[in-house]
């Protein structure tokens, strides 16, 4: 049984089907990359998985049971953490307070929550910034803070939405390393990423969508050579060459 199963997921905004009958599953322990051009429905898929949006039709199973009737916070408590593409730091709290607030998902005392937060900050290489206000972090730090907060809720599955966007090359290597570290710690990852270097090097499998519909799925190699994917990314002419 897959850890997460997305079954015939459809999400419509008025007449627009941002996600249209998409089916995929994420196996325990793997990194599944979700790719597609701008506006193809990747973030919407994430928002449906954690019920940030209610889904129009289809189903989402986590560890075999449907989660589509749960509330967003209950899904986090079940074990799905997420980051936001447009980062949402708790601006006027320090980095440590941000992560501590998340740690309370699993523990009740401030002592335990802080201890866990400090461990996570170390893991995400944010220890030096722990007393800074979240709003004072540069974008690289904010992206890592997004990940740290999601990790602090002790997820079994983490959804990473473009956590490498806007990073410089050295930060990018750090981000790749961090994602691998997360996988090694036993957490399953569903990741959306535009930067091909990142997605191709870390994904075990890739699921590609365009206009809300699946166009390919397979190993990074297979997907990179798939004509439909090349067409979606580079236009029709290139595919015919």
């Amino acid at each position, binding site marked *: 049984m897959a850890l997460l199963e997305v079954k015939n997921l459809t999400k419509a905004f008025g007449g627009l089907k941002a996600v249209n009958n998409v089916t995929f599953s994420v196996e325990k322990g793997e990194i599944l990359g979700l790719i597609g051009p701008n506006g193809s429905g990747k973030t919407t898929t994430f928002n449906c998985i954690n019920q940030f949006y209610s889904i129009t039709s289809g189903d989402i199973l986590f560890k075999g049971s449907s989660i589509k009737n749960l509330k967003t916070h209950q899904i986090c408590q079940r074990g799905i953490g997420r980051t936001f593409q447009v980062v949402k*730091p708790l601006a006027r709290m320090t980095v440590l307070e941000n992560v501590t607030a998340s740690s309370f998902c699993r523990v009740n005392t401030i002592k335990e929550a802080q201890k866990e937060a400090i461990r996570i900050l170390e893991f995400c290489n944010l220890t030096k910034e722990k007393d800074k206000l979240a709003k004072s972090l540069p974008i690289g730090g904010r992206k890592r803070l997004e990940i740290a907060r999601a990790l602090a809720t002790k997820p079994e599955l983490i959804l990473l939405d473009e956590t490498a966007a806007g990073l410089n090359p050295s930060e990018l290597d750090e981000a790749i390393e961090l994602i691998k570290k997360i996988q090694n710690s036993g957490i399953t990852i569903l990741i959306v990423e535009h930067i091909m270097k990142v997605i191709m090097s870390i994904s075990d499998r890739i699921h590609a969508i365009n206009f809300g519909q699946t166009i390919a799925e397979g190993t990074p190699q297979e997907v990179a050579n798939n004509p439909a994917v090349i067409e979606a990314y580079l236009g029709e002419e290139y595919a015919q060459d």
Partner: protein
Amino acid sequence: MKKNNLTLIILGIILLIFPLVIRSDYYQHLIIIAFMWVVIGSSWNLLAGYTGQVSFGHAMFFGVGAYTAGILFTKLGISPWWGMMFGGIASMMIGLFVGWVCFRLRGPYFALATLAGGEIFRLIATNWESLTDGMVGILIMQTFRSKIPYYYVALALAAVCVYSIHIVMQSKWGYYFVSIREDQDAAESLGINTTLYKNISLLISSFFTGMAGAFYMNYMAFIDPQVVFSLHYISIMAILVGIVGGVATIMGPAVGAFVMVGVQETFRSAFFGLAPKWISESHALVFGLLVIFVIMFLANGIVGDWSKIKRNVFKIKAPG
């Protein structure tokens, strides 16, 4: 940390011996009213400052607390001191209802509902004469002739309120409240039941505000709808106490309460009789100017901007 504790202990001792040293009823009265505002301001601050749910109608909770104590006494003969407990609980029930209606929605619904709620309760208290005696108000016998017992009750209530909020803010609840204020969507995605925790914050806030209202009933021995459900004397004043002292700080509303009661009294009494009488008519205007001043120069309130105040005052004093 140590220095702070020492300051608090000294402050505590001063407050404890104050009514024994300063025998004037007038000054004791002002401090009692200030204590009451510490409670209301701190409660408002928990909800608006820390949790980000701005209430424009804390008069609703204050008035319900006051009327609960008053009605229980006039109708059932229950001591209005018990009424302090029941007043808090009754306000909490109102809070529960308001929260249940508003907190599932996003946006300005809560602010608007509290604004309307205060007015609705004022109208109910005015028109339900068989229960409230309407515009006539409720008059009871004061328990004590001296102000000193009231002083200590008010001090205890203020201390318990501020200390409780301090404890809450250092717990899981406090972290959740601030997370909700900062970003409700992020909070929800991080496992926080935002609806539940907004309600918890509102319940604590309405409980203490209701107790303050019931205390007012006991102390003043007279209430009417125009006073205890007043938009500007209670609801707006609660906001002013919060922002002048400093929102989202523990001691801010306490400082704000003393400053605002001082300002209010100074103008009400036309600078203690030294200024022309018309000054006292302009106190609403002065409140407005004060808010503009605070927002422009002390956006974080007196406590929030304390280091800035110290720096600037020091600079003025330093020669050269």
